[in-house]
């Protein structure tokens, strides 16, 4: 929901909207003149599925994350949850913590998004034993 709020189209600027729970998502940002437009739910489901592949390998995990971070949005908690579980299957703690750093960066000037994500992911972080960059003290340069 949040991530949809901050989409900017390539064709023209849309004003950034303040984050608020319950805000309805605007239309997806890709401006195809024809062709089916993917809904936010379809987008999320596609990425959750991608990271849920049981035998996902390290390359696919890193490629998926780089592609996802390349989009003009902050990924939903459910997508990040799936990615963190993939890190767990791959024994890649470094990438798990890096994912948290990356989404904080993606939020840009909107400083309330990251705490919200951590709050939503808290059960998963606890279950998988993933520390946040803040807990490790590596969030300060």
């Amino acid at each position, binding site marked *: 929901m949040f991530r949809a709020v901050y989409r900017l189209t390539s064709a023209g600027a849309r004003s950034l909207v303040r984050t608020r729970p319950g805000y309805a998502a605007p239309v997806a940002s890709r401006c195809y003149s024809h062709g089916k437009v993917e809904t936010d739910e379809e987008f999320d489901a596609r990425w959750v599925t991608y990271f849920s592949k049981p035998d996902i390998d*390290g390359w696919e995990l890193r490629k998926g*994350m*780089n592609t996802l971070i390349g989009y003009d949005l902050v990924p939903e908690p459910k997508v990040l949850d799936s990615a963190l579980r993939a890190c767990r299957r791959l024994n890649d703690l*470094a990438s798990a913590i*890096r994912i948290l750093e990356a989404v904080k960066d993606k939020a840009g000037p909107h400083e309330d998004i990251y705490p919200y994500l951590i709050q939503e992911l808290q059960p998963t972080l606890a279950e998988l034993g993933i520390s946040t960059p803040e807990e490790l003290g590596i969030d300060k340069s």
Partner: protein
Amino acid sequence: MAHQAHAYHMVDPSPWPLTGAVAALLLTSGTAIWMHFNSMSLMSLGMILLLLTIYQWWRDIIREGTFQGHHTPPVQKGLRYGMILFITSEVFFFLGFFWAFYHSSLAPTPELGGCWPPTGITTLDPFEVPLLNTAVLLASGVTVTWAHHSIMEGQRKQAIQSLTLTILLGFYFTFLQGMEYYEAPFTIADGVYGSTFFVATGFHGLHVIIGSSFLAVCLLRQVQFHFTSKHHFGFEAAAWYWHFVDVVWLFLYISIYWWGS
């Protein structure tokens, strides 16, 4: 005196394949010995033997074709197939290095910071010297085509001028690339970025030097009246090779210099 009842070329016995093979052995083992035991002797010997083989083998081919008339149409067709197959094999050679680049850059590891360019790497600005290099090679593609048309139209002076210009552009590229290598803020030892950058562009640069040399030989031959307006396959082969080198650069520029920055 015996004559052949066919148009094909039964090549006379020659020592150059053997000397070439020996050179390859000395070069490879010599390089290994240089790396482990700090001696350049075997590698240098291999290099000398290779250069002698190159000079004499291709000199003999020129004698057989230009002066002895052995390069009949079917023979020339075979040479064309050969050059095409060789260039195709070189395409696959470069494909491997592009695979390596994309493998590493599409899915950068945590050691690099999970990002590309990796943390700490200052990339070259694609719109500075690399863009000039692109213009230089594209221009050389135009001049080599001009040279070809000049040869086909029997315009000797223009052929010499345009071929010379092509070679000068090739040297200019090599010079500019040399400067870039010297001034670059990263080295081949700088992680997988350095490795993929310098191995891919390095082999490309080597091919530019080889291609320039091939064109230089064609220039010498053109000056010495070897080519006719209808028969100049050596030049065509050099031009094909040169276009291949240009295309590889375009892929390098777009992938490594531009997208990869």
